[in-house]
């Protein structure tokens, strides 16, 4: 017997209207959603059309890569002269000392390999023994770096740091600034929140003094004024003076970034830890700082990126960092007139490292994000 019951069956889902899916819809809503959007879209497309194809043509299609002197580029002025960057690559990376002594070039190369060999595993989540890698990077690596790049021991020829240059110098200054400024900055941030009047006022004066002085002034003082206070012949190396200036300056900024994190921690955290019988240092190290540093990662990294770029200010004290050496290289008789290529190269290198730092800090934030936010 056939059942006569009515069966309600779900019809298959209908597709959404064709004008709301696919790239057409995306373009329509996002680029041509309203009259003003349409106008802006058209304007931007026009600008892209105006500038991008000629740029690509200049930078890639017509560009000169071959040869080893300017004659290649002089014959074809329509394209970029990357031959210049190719020929001067060792100078741009390592500075004049290592460029004039190619047999010593292995020293900075090994230092770079060592640096990235320690740094990259640190950034990968699954690496075992990270703590030891970090300790190696912060303690053994700087000594190793000095021995091998500075030389003067174990039969390695002495290289005068003021003759270092290029990316090597930029890295050295930024690395020293970053690893010394972080602990100093943390101490200063704690000092500023301390209840001890001397520590507190010292920290405030220190931070406000260095923060209120432009880095260019500090470097200039370190380079021009400092030697006047020493007897003739006694001198700190220029690079060391720059390092001291950068570290003093940077620690004030780092301190303020860390203090921002400290202030965001609820008072209940320290009260609770006090209730558990913890002293000040226990509280700070195990309860407050881990939370505060996590919050301040974006602003700390922000100051580090700024520092990395600020190292190019050392050119005003005659140190040939990446930017300055690119500039000077393009002013030699061999290559004068090709300054755009020099600046482009320096810009791209700076961008790669700054962008890398920024990406890493975003990953770190996500990884450490334990807040149960909605």
């Amino acid at each position, binding site marked *: 017997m056939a059942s006569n019951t009515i069966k309600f069956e779900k019809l298959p889902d209908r597709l959404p209207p064709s004008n709301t899916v696919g790239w057409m819809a995306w373009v329509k809503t996002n680029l041509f959603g309203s009259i003003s959007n349409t106008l802006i879209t058209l304007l931007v497309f026009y600008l892209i059309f105006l500038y991008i194809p000629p740029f690509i043509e200049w930078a890639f299609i017509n560009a000169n890569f071959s040869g080893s002197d300017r004659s290649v580029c002089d014959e074809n002025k329509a394209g970029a002269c990357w031959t210049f960057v190719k020929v001067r690559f060792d100078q741009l990376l390592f500075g004049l000392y290592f460029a004039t002594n190619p047999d010593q070039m292995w020293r900075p190369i090994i230092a770079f390999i060592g640096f990235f060999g320690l740094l990259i595993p640190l950034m990968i989540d699954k690496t075992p023994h990270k703590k030891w890698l970090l300790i190696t990077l912060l303690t053994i690596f700087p000594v190793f770096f000095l021995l091998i790049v500075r030389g003067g021991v174990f039969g390695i020829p002495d290289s005068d740091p003021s003759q270092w240059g290029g990316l090597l110098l930029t890295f050295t200054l930024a690395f020293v600034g970053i690893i010394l400024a972080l602990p100093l900055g943390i101490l200063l941030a704690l000092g500023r929140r301390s209840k001890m009047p001397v520590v507190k006022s010292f920290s405030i004066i220190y931070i406000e003094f260095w923060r209120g002085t432009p880095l260019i002034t500090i470097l200039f003082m370190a380079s021009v004024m400092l030697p006047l206070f020493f007897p003739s012949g006694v001198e700190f190396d220029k690079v060391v003076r720059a390092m001291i200036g950068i570290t003093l300056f940077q620690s004030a900024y780092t301190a303020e970034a860390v203090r921002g994190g400290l202030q965001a921690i609820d008072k209940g955290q320290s009260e609770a830890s006090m209730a558990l019988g913890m002293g000040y240092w226990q509280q700070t190290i195990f309860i407050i700082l881990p939370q505060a540093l996590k919050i301040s990662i974006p602003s700390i990294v922000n100051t580090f990126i700024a520092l990395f770029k600020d190292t190019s200010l050392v050119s005003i004290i005659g140190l040939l960092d990446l930017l300055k050496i690119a500039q000077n*290289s393009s*002013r*030699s008789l061999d290559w004068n007139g090709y*300054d755009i290529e020099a600046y482009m190269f320096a810009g791209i290198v700076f961008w790669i490292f700054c962008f890398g730092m920024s990406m890493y800090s975003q990953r770190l934030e996500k990884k450490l994000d334990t807040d149960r936010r909605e």
Partner: protein
Amino acid sequence: MKKISLLLSGITLMGLAFTGVSTATTLEDVQARGELRCGVDGGVAGFSAPNNAGRMVGIDASICDAIAAAVLGDSNAVVYVSLTAAERFTALTAGEIDVLSRNTTHTLSRDATLGTNFTYYNFIDGQGFMVAKADGLASVKDLDGASICVQTGTTTEVNMADYFRNNNLDYTPVGYSTSVGTREGLEGGACDAITSDASQLAAIRSETANPSDWTMLPEIISKEPLGPVVRQGDDQWMDIVTWTLHALINAEELGITSSNVDAMRADSPNPSVARILGGESETGAMLGLSNDWAYNAIKQVGNYGEIYEAHVEPLGIARAGSVNDLWTRGGIIYSPPIR
């Protein structure tokens, strides 16, 4: 304070610190060190800029090479210290460098008040004007009412203002912070003329898309004698620097070049040649140097003319008949006799 001293001692431990007090003379210092520390600009084509091999080259750098050859016998024994205009004199007086060869103009105030002594000139510069050839201008007097690109904050700005006021000419300055900016301004048509030191103008012209489109006007409106500078208070060292430069000029006068110096030393009948090259009198010993001081400098670096030709001619600054030619050919490059 504890933190700072901790930091300082930490950095000292890093091994980059003091280089020792010295009471010795500059010559003794240089000889003990085995290298000459020479302050240069490092970014001026033809004067001092790194070549492809990373070595500083140019007319300023060559003077240091010659001094190193004269003092140490090796023109490669030079450490070039790049200096900005602001710190160059401090670096010299503080003993960071032994000689400053950084396109530095000799003026009374610098000579008298900075604790420095000027020696002689390796390039005599002066402020000039460059215009488009197509405009057909013949003189700065034709620039009445023109707009002129100039690097701001330099003495060129002041010199131009003075000159135009003295000559009752009108002009509109168009300021840029860099010399590259002034070049772009000129090429882009922001101004009718550009002003700077003549050597700088030549360098700018060589950087333009079509160097032959531009021409320099004949007037030179300022005096910019450039030369090596030493610290005050070490007369022996000043003599060495001065006379090394003189030796290069004398060598050109006498026709001694880097290629014929050996032949000249062996059998030149001219007693002046013998005196310079260490044959007859003890010229080196008088300066506290070895007797082949000038021979080494000429052999390894070349005479003044050779240096000029190698580094300044390529910029398009012709030497013949200019102030930088020898006095025997109508210039003012002149050297006292070496005897």
